[in-house]
């Protein structure tokens, strides 16, 4: 079921992200496919996505029309509909797919280079906080259209972000944590990144790598490797993966 066509894939993600109307009832989206979707996109789609992002940054989602995006990309309206059938709503979800995919793609190489859990967390948290800090489109949308953006980051909708975090972090966290600890770890890290992205604090400053390392070393590494994270029956296991017997 992961090998659906690009359009169907986008529909699934559309339902899941509840962009616009017709939300909710779709099957569970394979979030990891966002990265594949991004990598497989043709040049025409990529140009449209970049044009749409520039339009959203300038005018917001609500006021951007398909004509605006076509003009920005230097193509006809008909071309937009041919490359991304379904109009603006579909374009919004394709843009979201691409941004999530881009994030996956750029972070993945950096995270793979980390040799300790501490380095992995510092790289990941710092990288994501820098992305959030420098993402003009996201910041503009949060400021101007909070009613469209913020619900995706609160209450039960955060479960989707947790799925995304799990997909992004699992291959990397699995190098340092037993499989059953990965999901709770990914959720904790997502909470940390989101709270300090939305409400920055001087003591966790992505422009000061030492501050992120203090957060990770003092609070997060113990939190993720504490025996009581797992079921009580596993509480006697060691936290050193090198000595992990299972």
């Amino acid at each position, binding site marked *: 079921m992961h090998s659906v066509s690009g359009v169907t894939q986008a529909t699934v993600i559309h339902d899941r992200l509840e962009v616009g109307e017709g939300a909710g009832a779709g099957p569970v989206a394979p979030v990891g496919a966002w990265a594949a979707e991004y990598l497989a996109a043709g040049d025409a789609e990529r140009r449209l996505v970049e044009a749409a992002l520039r339009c959203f940054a300038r005018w917001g989602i609500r006021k951007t029309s398909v004509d605006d995006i076509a003009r920005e990309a230097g193509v006809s309206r008909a071309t937009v509909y041919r490359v991304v059938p379904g109009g603006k709503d579909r374009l919004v979800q394709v843009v979201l797919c691409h941004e999530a995919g881009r994030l996956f793609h750029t972070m993945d190489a950096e995270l793979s280079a980390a040799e300790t859990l501490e380095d992995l967390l510092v790289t990941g948290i710092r990288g994501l906080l820098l992305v959030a800090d420098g993402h003009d489109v996201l910041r503009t949308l949060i400021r101007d259209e*909070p009613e469209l953006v913020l619900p995706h980051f*609160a209450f039960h*909708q*955060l479960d989707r972000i947790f799925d995304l975090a799990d997909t992004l972090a699992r291959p990397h966290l699995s190098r340092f944590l037993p499989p059953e600890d990965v999901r709770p770890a990914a959720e904790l890290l997502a909470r940390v990144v989101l709270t300090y992205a939305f409400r920055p604090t001087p003591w966790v400053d992505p422009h000061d790598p030492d501050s992120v390392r203090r*957060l990770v*070393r003092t*609070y997060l590494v113990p*939190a993720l*490797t*504490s025996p009581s994270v797992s079921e009580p029956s596993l509480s006697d296991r060691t936290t050193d993966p090198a000595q992990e017997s299972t």
Partner: protein
Amino acid sequence: MERDGLGALTVEEVAREAGVARATVYRTFPGGRDEVVGAAVAHAVAGFFADLRRDIGDAPDLATLLERGLVAARRRLESHAALQRALQEEAGQIVPRLATVMPLVIDGVRAELTSRLARERLRPGVVPDQAADLLARLFLSLIGSPGSWDLDDPDAARRLVRGQLLAGVVELDPPG
């Protein structure tokens, strides 16, 4: 708001419900409808946390406070009819409102936790203000979005608190 939701609220209705003139509403809230809704949401949030504090204020230590707090807050949130209704029907209205009052909520929880941390054995390198900030944010995040934690289950809450929340912060007695 509990009866009709946020979107349909008018100053006239608020005035009628309160038994005052429309002019009185505008005298109290010069910003009109927007300010009335903001004040009502802030009032509801303050009430929520005042109730929560009564639920758990007598907890003997930080770990117990957080464990009971997560369970009690989650229960209160799930049974909060006005909030659940707003999240279902007008998330775009309620979530930005709650986001606006969030800094004050974080401040309040952080202050409570800072005073609690003063009575705990802290792990080496822990800075109380930082620990309180992180714990307050995680606590609030967990209440709103428990993720894969089942906070109806006190054992799960206990594992969560003694692991993810406090393992880096305080010296805990070994379990059992």
